[in-house]
Each structure stands twice: as C-alpha cells, then as structure tokens.
C-alpha cells in the first residue's frame, strides 16, 4: 500500500511538471477562481463592517419627565439592559443634559438667555438605547409602553420620528445581505464551474493515456491517483498565488479604505484573519483540484 501511494504521489508530481502548458493553464484558471472567492470573502468583511457601523449609529432616545427621580430612571435602564434584544443603554442625567444643551447652543445667545431666565433645569434625564438589530426597536418601544412604572415617568420617545428611517435602514440592510449572498453564490458557482471544466479539459487530453493504463491492467485507484495528486498540486500552487496576490492588494486598498470605510482597514483584516483566509483560499484550491480531477477521470474509467 505504501509503495502504491509513493508511486501515485511521484507519478502525479512528475505528470504535473511534464504537462507544462496544460498545468500552467490549469493553475492560471484556478488562481483566477480563487482570487474571485478570496475577493468575495474580503468584500463580505467590508460589507459586514459597513453595515455594523451603520447599525451602531442608529439608536432610540427616551426622554424622562423632569419630575422623574434618578433612581426611577436607572431602574428603567436596568430593566432595558436585561432585554435580550438590547445591545447598550446609555444614561444621561438631567445636569448632563443641561450641559450638553448649553454646549450645543453656545452660539445661540437668545436660547441661552431664555434658559437662564427659567432658573430651574427644564430638561429631564434621558436614556439612549441601541438594539442589537434595528428591527427590534419597535418591540422595545412596545415593551416601554407596556411597563406602567416606566410609562408614568417618560416624557417622549423619539422612535416615532426615526421610525421610517429605521425601517428603511432595516429593509436596506436585509436586502443588501440577501443580494450580497446571492451575488457571492453566483460568482463562486460560476468560477468553480469554469475551474472544473478546465481540469476536465486537461484530463480529456489524457483520455487515450487513461485507456492505455486500463488495458495494461492498472487499477482504477492507480490510474486516478496521479491525476488527483496533480490536481491537488495545481490547487495548492493556485491557492498560494491567490493568497500572495491579496497581500499587496489589501495593503493598497487598506490605505484608502480607512478614510471611506469609517476606520476599517482591509490590510489589518487580511493580517488578523490570515489563518481563516489561508484555510478558505488554499482549502478551496485543494478541494477544487481534487474533486475536479476525481470527477474528470471517472468518466474514462467506466469500461
């Protein structure tokens, strides 16, 4: 068995190196396929980060009555934080609200004068609530409406004003994710079919050779093995080339992406997730080469 395996590996490697042009063409097509697969992984990371940063910018503010006690507001905060759909709740005290208001209107003398004339702080405390998913804000607002203790001290919630924007954003995120997934799938399927066809074409050119191997009494495993080894070698080389290709590309794109992707650096993603990218790209190459060769030889082993 060991002798057979050694011969299969040796014959596969020799066949790969001697079939120069065919091997080159196979590696080229598989490299393009793996670059497409890798690009889609990176694009998906960019898309996911962008959507996540947009989601983080959406929140709902709850403004409390000036008569509400701080302990009451903090109790509402605690109850909200216990909800599974809540990501984060930020408390702003009455004093902080006033400070923020003054700061925001420091150039508006009339407003500040009116505030001074009031004497007392007219602003209530506030809670800024961020949900894990923008579609969950409606449920949170309903939760507050059903909570009698909270409802009695709430002045207003800005959800009504933001509702349309939040819903549109939720729909846009859903649509982007669905469309993105469909496009990714389409590209991956197309490029895999092209790679499979290329490997099968390479094996088609060796069909007479396969027939001879059969007639001299070689077992199917002994015939198929070297082709699979050659396919794996092509996949490995293609995977490494594709992985190396993304090093300078992600570095170059990463410089620019920090500016227009809200701090997301593609190169940092490449470096941090290198093991994952290696697994996906090189693993796809190895799998593609082996499966394509296995299927390619199979039809010539029928007799």
């Amino acid at each position, binding site marked *: 068995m060991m*002798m*057979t395996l050694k*011969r299969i590996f040796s014959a596969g490697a*020799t*066949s790969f190196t*001697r*079939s120069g042009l065919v091997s080159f063409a196979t590696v080229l097509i598989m490299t393009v396929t793996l670059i497409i697969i890798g690009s889609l992984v990176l694009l998906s990371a960019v898309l996911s980060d962008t959507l996540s940063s947009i989601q983080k910018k959406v929140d709902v503010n709850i403004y409390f009555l000036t008569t509400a006690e701080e302990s009451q507001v903090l109790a509402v905060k605690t109850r909200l934080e216990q909800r599974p759909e809540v990501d984060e709740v930020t408390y702003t005290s009455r004093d902080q609200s006033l400070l923020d208001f003054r700061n925001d209107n420091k150039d508006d003398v009339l407003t500040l004068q009116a505030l001074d004339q009031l004497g007392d702080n007219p602003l209530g405390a506030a809670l800024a609530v961020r949900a894990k998913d923008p579609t969950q804000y409606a449920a949170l607002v309903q939760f507050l409406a059903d909570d009698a203790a909270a409802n009695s001290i709430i002045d207003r919630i800005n959800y009504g004003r933001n509702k349309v924007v939040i819903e549109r954003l939720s729909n846009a995120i859903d649509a982007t994710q669905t469309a993105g997934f469909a496009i990714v799938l389409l590209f991956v399927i197309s490029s895999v079919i092209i790679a499979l066809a290329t490997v099968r074409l390479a094996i088609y050119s060796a069909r*007479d*050779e396969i*027939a*001879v*191997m*059969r*007639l*001299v*009494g*070689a*077992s*199917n495993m*002994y015939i198929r093995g070297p082709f699979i080894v050659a396919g794996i070698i092509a996949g490995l080389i293609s995977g490494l080339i594709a992985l190396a290709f993304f090093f300078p590309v992600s570095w170059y794109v990463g410089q620019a992406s920090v500016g227009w992707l809200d701090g997301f650096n593609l190169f940092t993603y490449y470096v941090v997730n290198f093991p994952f990218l290696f697994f996906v790209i090189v693993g796809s190459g190895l799998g593609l080469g082996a499966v394509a060769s296995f299927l390619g030889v199979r039809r010539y082993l029928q*007799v």
Partner: protein
Amino acid sequence: MIYFDKVTKLYRDGTPALEDITLSIAPKEFVSIVGHSGAGKTTLLKMLLAEDAPTEGTVYFESTDVHSLPKSLLHHYRRKIGMVFQDFRLIPNKTAYENIAFAMEAAGRHDDEIASDVPHILDLVDLGSKGGHFPHQLSGGEQQRVAIGRAIVNQPDVIVADEPTGNLDPVNTYEIVEILKKVNELGTTVLITTHNKGVVDAMGKRVITMERGRITRDDAHGQYIL
C-alpha cells in the same frame, strides 16, 4: 485457453459486428486473424479484453467467463494479457523505460524487480540505449518495440496484437514479426490481427479469416482468403 462460444455482437442499429463466432485457441499457439477493414477483427479482440460485451454468447479465458467478472477484478484479468496496438499507444509524458515500468508498477511489482527487469526487456527489444527517450523522440518501429516490451514485461499468458505492423515500413514490420515469433517460441500464446499478407506468410502458422463479422476459414497451416 481462449474459447469464444457462439459470440454475436450487434451494433445499436442491429447491424452485426460479429455473428455466431465459435473458436478456441490453445496455450502457446500463434494465431493470425486476417480480414478486410470492418471484418470484425478488432471487435473480436475487444470482446477478449472485456472492453466490450457480446450481445449473445460467451467468451472464456481459462474457463472463466470474462464478461461475468466484476469491474473491480477486470484489471487483474487484463494483467494476464499483453496488448499491442497499431498506433503504439505509449504514454506520451513517460520515457520508454517508464512506459515499460508502468505496466510493472500497475501489477504491483517491487522497485528492485522493476530496476532489474526493465533494462533486460529494453535490451530484448533492442532499445537498450534509448530507455530515456520519450515516445516523440522515437521512430514508429522503436515505439512499437517499446509497446511490445510493455506487453511482455509482466510475462502474460497471451499477447494480443491489433494490427501491430499497420503503421510500419517493411524493415520495421520484419523486426516486429521476429520479436513476436521469439515471444511465442518462449511459450506465450500470441494472437494478432492483420491484413498484411507478408506478415501472415512469414509466420506460416494458424490463420483465421474473417469477413463481415463471420469466420470464413480457419486453417492450421497458414492458408487464408484475403
């Protein structure tokens, strides 16, 4: 040793490629099958190699119905037969040495056996100095000698040669015929198809004449109609 029992092979449109063929070949025999193109010679060999199945009848090799063998055992059966083709069918990206060694590797022979036997076989077919040449670097006659070397290296029971001199000039044809005669003298059954009268005459052995899928003459003394 080989027995065709009422073998008929019909094409898909119903045209007969072989019709009611019954023949037997004894061990160590040298049999030439002659006939024009389309007479059914190659189909007959394909039946023997289990490359194609008969529509009716049975092909026996050493009392085994070759078409009842499971696919997983076919390669073991084929190792008992050394095959030589008109177009040589060498593996193009292997050298002459590697082409012969491949048949031994496929049969599971050990590296030291291969290292000792292949040079001997190359000498036997007079290609001792060309073991490192690829098929495209060899002449037609040399390629056919490599093919014969590959066919005999595992010491098969039978050598089947399908038009082995069809692509060769008279000098190379003579050399190939001499090698096949020598192989037969060493005890191997040889079955060849040909439409080269010179080859058949040079043998002076049993000749089976085929026409339109039927055996029209089977003469032990080399007489035939062509």
